[in-house]
């Protein structure tokens, strides 16, 4: 996208507001929706990947140390990963308290 959509005027929109750029939903920060964020306690993690499998937004990725890390740009804070984690390695914390 050349500029944020909040700056587009009605005259600049394609007819029917067709989206011309395939896959540009990846530019949408669904992470804005959350109030709770997942925090991983690495000492408890057994690398089972259930958080990765259950995440409804595919926000989890594997890092070079084989830990599954939530991408907070997309994570909506639903808490399914924390609920499913068999060792309790993920806790949900209020974003502003985490600092």
């Amino acid at each position, binding site marked *: 996208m050349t500029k944020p959509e909040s700056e587009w005027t009605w*005259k600049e*929109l*394609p*007819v029917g*507001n067709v*989206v011309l750029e395939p896959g540009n939903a990846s530019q949408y920060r669904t992470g804005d929706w959350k109030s709770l964020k997942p925090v991983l306690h690495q000492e408890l993690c057994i690398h089972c990947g259930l958080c990765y499998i259950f995440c409804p937004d595919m926000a989890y990725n594997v890092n070079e140390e084989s830990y599954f890390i939530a991408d907070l740009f997309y994570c909506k804070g639903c808490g399914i990963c924390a609920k499913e984690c068999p060792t309790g390695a993920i806790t949900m914390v209020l974003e502003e308290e985490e600092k």
Partner: protein
Amino acid sequence: MGKRVGMEVSIAAAEAVKQANVDVISAYPITPQTHIVEHLSELVANGELDAEFFCVESEHSALSVCVGAAATGARAFTCTSSQGLVLMSEITYIASGLRLPMLMILSNRTISAPLSIWNDHSDVMTIRDCGWIQFFVENGQEVYDHVFVSYRLAEDQKVLFPVIVNMDGFILSHVIEPIELIAQEKIDQFLPPYQPIYRLDPDHPVTMGAFALPSIFAETKKAQEEALRSSIPKILDTWKAFGDMTGRYYHPVETYKTEDADTLLVTMGSCGETASVAVDKMREEGRSVGLVKIRLWRPFPFDDLKKATLHAKQLVVIDRAMSVGACGPVASEVKAALYGKDDRPSVYNFVAGISGRDVTPSDFVKMVGKAEIEIEQGNKEGYEMYGVRG
């Protein structure tokens, strides 16, 4: 001059759809629309029309198929009535929001309850605000003609809107009328193949119907609003081109014996022809009465209506649908058009002929007489249901 043939208006409508060379037909049968799609299904089955005919399980699906077909660049057609339109209503807003051209012939029928199969305009009024171009026609010839007008207009890259042609159920759909058919080569010249700006194509992927955040929604609707309003010159151009081809010229608002008339009847749809008989009768009696007929319902032709009613002292607006708890939908538009005009005429509103109850020339004479008396007695903006017992 084309060939003049006596045929049922529904069959003429279906023949026009065939001549328009549609690619996709999707409809669900409902009285009084049935003969149109039955005939089209025969034409497809017999190989006379090379189109996909979708037998769907509901009107919601019928219009959804048309949306999908139009999105791929196909010329799509559907047809319904009454409850069928109400079931389609969700998709009507989507078709216009996505700016997809298509044609729906609406064989107008009453909305239940009470259940009724007969004609009035209550069906289309449920989707009045859905953003389609909406025509009303008076007779079979106008139905036939508006199939071609509608596709050419809808597919114009400066327009790109779906179109509804409203034809009164039974009063038009089931009667046999003389129809002047247009030669196929003339139609082909008038109606070139549809060239979409955007279409669904795996080689050039686009997304249609994506959701919009509050930050862009209003801009999208503004673009739609401006496009529909500015389609009026294109509608006029299309009617002009059609008139040049056939000699039949159409206008957003049409007038009959309005010169110097103090009182004007205002109608929409087939009852305009009956009202014109009443006007002749009243003129013979020396009464100063004329007739204004609204052909273009959306976008509403405010300027044409003002011009057509410029010198009148009073308007008698006939609505064939109710907006329960307010006045008739046509009257409320007419009043809005005239509001703010210093010497505006009084607007007296009758709801008449709902659910197929006959409105004869003498009924129009009675309504004009009643309105003139009421207005003289000071009831200048009256509203009543005509001919109700008790």
